[in-house]
C-alpha cells in the first residue's frame, strides 16, 4: 500500500491531497489536465518536496515532514515514465535501457532484461538512436528503461495521451501485459477515462490539487464526483462481469452481469475472463413492463434503489440489477409518465452496439 498525504503551496495553485494506492494494483489518478496530477507524481517520486505531509510505501517512510525524513529521489525506486519520456539523446536505446539497471545492480534484479525485451518487443531497437524511433517505440523504450531500474512502483504520466489512435492501440496491449505478467504496482496518471476503464483497479479523482473521491471504479462510477469530471454525456455505471461464452458467428460475447446477462461485441474476449463494461447513463432505456418485439438484445431485470434530480430537466435513476448497480438518465417528463419510484421493479434495456468490453 502506498499512502500519501501531501501539501504544497504554490503561487499558481496548491496541492492538498490524501490518497492511497493498493500494492499490487493499478491506481489511476484521474482528472482534467492541469489538475495537479503531474505535480503529485513529482512529489511521490521525490523530485519535488512537499511543504508538509507524509508518504509511505508498504510500511517504509519515504517522506515525513514532521519527523524530518526525506528519502532522496535516487534511492526511492519509484520509476517514472514521464509524459515527455525524457530518453537520453546522447545514448542509444540499449544504453538508455541499461541506465537504471546498472544503478540497480546492487539490489536483486527481479525484472529481468530478457523478459522486458520480450514483453515490450525491444530487441530490434537496441542499437538505434532515440531520435530514430517512432512515437510508440519511444514510449516502449521509456517504459522498458523505467522497468529495468527495478522499481517497487511504476509511475506513468499520461503514457498514452501523447499518441494518436493507431499508436495508442499499438502501446496499450503492452500495459495490459505488464499488469497481467509482472505483479508490479502502478500509478497511472491520465485525463482519458478510457485508460481508467481499461487499466485501473483503484481510482483517485483529482481536481485543482485536491482528491475529490477514491475507491474502486464500479462504486465511483455511481457517485457525483466522477460525473462532474466526465460530464453528463460521458458518465454512467461501470460494471464488471464474467464472460460465459463467445459466439464466433455473431461476434458477440455473453457476459454474466448481476443476475442477468449482456451480449457484448467482442470476439477477442476469452470465456471465463472478467470484463469491464461502461454503460453510459444516456444509453439505458427503462421499461416498467416486459418489453417485446424490440431490436434491443439486452434486458436486465432490476429494482430502482434511488432517484436523483439531474438539472435542469432530467432524472438519474439508480437501479440494482441483481447486484450490478446501474445508472440511467431519463427526462423528468418520462419519469412522471411512468410513475418511477424507489423500490419499483423494472427492465433496463441496452443496445449491444453501445457496449464495449475491456478485459481485466
Amino acid at each position, binding site marked *: 500500500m502506498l499512502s500519501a498525504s501531501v501539501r504544497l503551496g504554490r503561487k499558481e495553485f496548491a496541492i492538498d491531497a490524501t490518497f492511497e494506492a493498493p500494492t499490487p494494483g493499478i491506481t489511476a489518478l484521474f482528472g482534467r489536465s492541469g489538475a495537479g496530477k503531474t505535480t503529485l507524481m513529482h512529489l511521490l517520486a521525490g523530485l519535488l518536496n512537499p511543504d508538509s505531509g507524509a508518504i509511505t510505501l508498504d510500511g517504509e517512510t519515504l517522506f515525513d515532514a514532521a519527523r524530518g525524513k526525506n528519502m532522496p529521489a535516487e534511492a526511492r525506486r519509484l*520509476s517514472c515514465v514521464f509524459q515527455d519520456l525524457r530518453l537520453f539523446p546522447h545514448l542509444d536505446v540499449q544504453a538508455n535501457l541499461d541506465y537504471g539497471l546498472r544503478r540497480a545492480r546492487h539490489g536483486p534484479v527481479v525484472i529481468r532484461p530478457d523478459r522486458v525485451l520480450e514483453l515490450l518487443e525491444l530487441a530490434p531497437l537496441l542499437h538505434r538512436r532515440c531520435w530514430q524511433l517512432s512515437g510508440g517505440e519511444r514510449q516502449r523504450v521509456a517504459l522498458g528503461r523505467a522497468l529495468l531500474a527495478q522499481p517497487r512502483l511504476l509511475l506513468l504520466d499520461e503514457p498514452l495521451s501523447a499518441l494518436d489512435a493507431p499508436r495508442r492501440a499499438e502501446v496499450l496491449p503492452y500495459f495490459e501485459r505488464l499488469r497481467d505478467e509482472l505483479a508490479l504496482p502502478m500509478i497511472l496518471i491520465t485525463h482519458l477515462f478510457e485508460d481508467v476503464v481499461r487499466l485501473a483497479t483503484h481510482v483517485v479523482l483529482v481536481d485543482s490539487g485536491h482528491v475529490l473521491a477514491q475507491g474502486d471504479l464500479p462504486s465511483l462510477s455511481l457517485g457525483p464526483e466522477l460525473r462532474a469530471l466526465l460530464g453528463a454525456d460521458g458518465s454512467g455505471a461501470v460494471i464488471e462481469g464474467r464472460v460465459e461464452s463467445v459466439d464466433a458467428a455473431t461476434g458477440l460475447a455473453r457476459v454474466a452481469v448481476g443476475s442477468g446477462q449482456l451480449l457484448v461485441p467482442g470476439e477477442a474476449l476469452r470465456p471465463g475472463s472478467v470484463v469491464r463494461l461502461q454503460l453510459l447513463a444516456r444509453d439505458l432505456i427503462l421499461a416498467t413492463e416486459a418489453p417485446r418485439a424490440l431490436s434491443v438484445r439486452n434486458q436486465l431485470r432490476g429494482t430502482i434503489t434511488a432517484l436523483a434530480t439531474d438539472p435542469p430537466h432530467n432524472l438519474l435513476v439508480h437501479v440494482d440489477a441483481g447486484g450490478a448497480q446501474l445508472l440511467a438518465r431519463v427526462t423528468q417528463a418520462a419519469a412522471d409518465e411512468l410513475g418511477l419510484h424507489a423500490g419499483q421493479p423494472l427492465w433496463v434495456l441496452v443496445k449491444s452496439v453501445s457496449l464495449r468490453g475491456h478485459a481485466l
Partner: protein
Amino acid sequence: MTRMSDAEIEALALSLQVALRSVIFSLPPAIAIAWLLTRRRFSGRALLDAFVHLPMVLPPVMIGYVLLLLFGVRGPIGHWLYAQFGIRLAFTTAGAALATAVMAFPLMVRSIRLALENVDRGLEQAARNLGAGAVDRFLSVTLPLMAPGILAGAVTAFVASLGEFGAVITFAGNVPGQTRTLPIALYSALQTPDGGNEAARIALISFALGLAGLFASELLARRLRRRLGR
C-alpha cells in the same frame, strides 16, 4: 613562398603548445565556474560573474602586470610556488600559458555556461529517478549533453590563445623558444630593421592557423550535434 625557417617553426610550435596548455588547465575551473553561475544561487554571484569577465574589458597589459604582481618571483603566490615546488612562472612557457588562460577564460566560461543552460533539466530529473546521485548524473547526463558547447568553448579559447599578445609579453616576456609565440614574433619582426618580409610571413602563418582552427571547430561541433540528434 619558401619553407618555414627554424625560428618560424619554433614560434608556431610554441604558440600551439602554449594555447593547448592554457585550454587544458582552464577547462576544469571554467566548467566549475559555469556550473556555479548557472545552477547555484549564492550571495556574491554577480561579483564572481563580473570578476570572471574582467579580462574582456581590461587592457591585456594590465592583466599581465597584475599577474606579475601576484605570480612574479616576489609576488605572494609566485614566491610560495617557487619556495614550495621550485616552480617559476614569470618569463617561462608555463607563465605564457597562464597569461593566455586568464585572457581566454571569459570566452570559455561564456560558451560552457550557454551549453549548460541548454541542458534539459528534465533529463537530469529522469537520471535521478533512475537512481543516479548528483555526481553520477552530472558525469553521465549533464556533461555529455554539454559536450558540443564545451568543445566550441575550448576551440574558441584555443584560437584566441594563439593570438594573445599583451598579457603574455608583459608577464612572460619575449624569450625565443620559451615565450616568443607567433604574435610576439610578429611584433619582434616589426621592431627589427628590414623585418617587413619576415612579419608578413608570420602574419600569413597566423592567418592560416586561425582559419584552420575555426573550420576544425565547426566540423567537430557539427559531428557532436549530429550524435545528439539535433
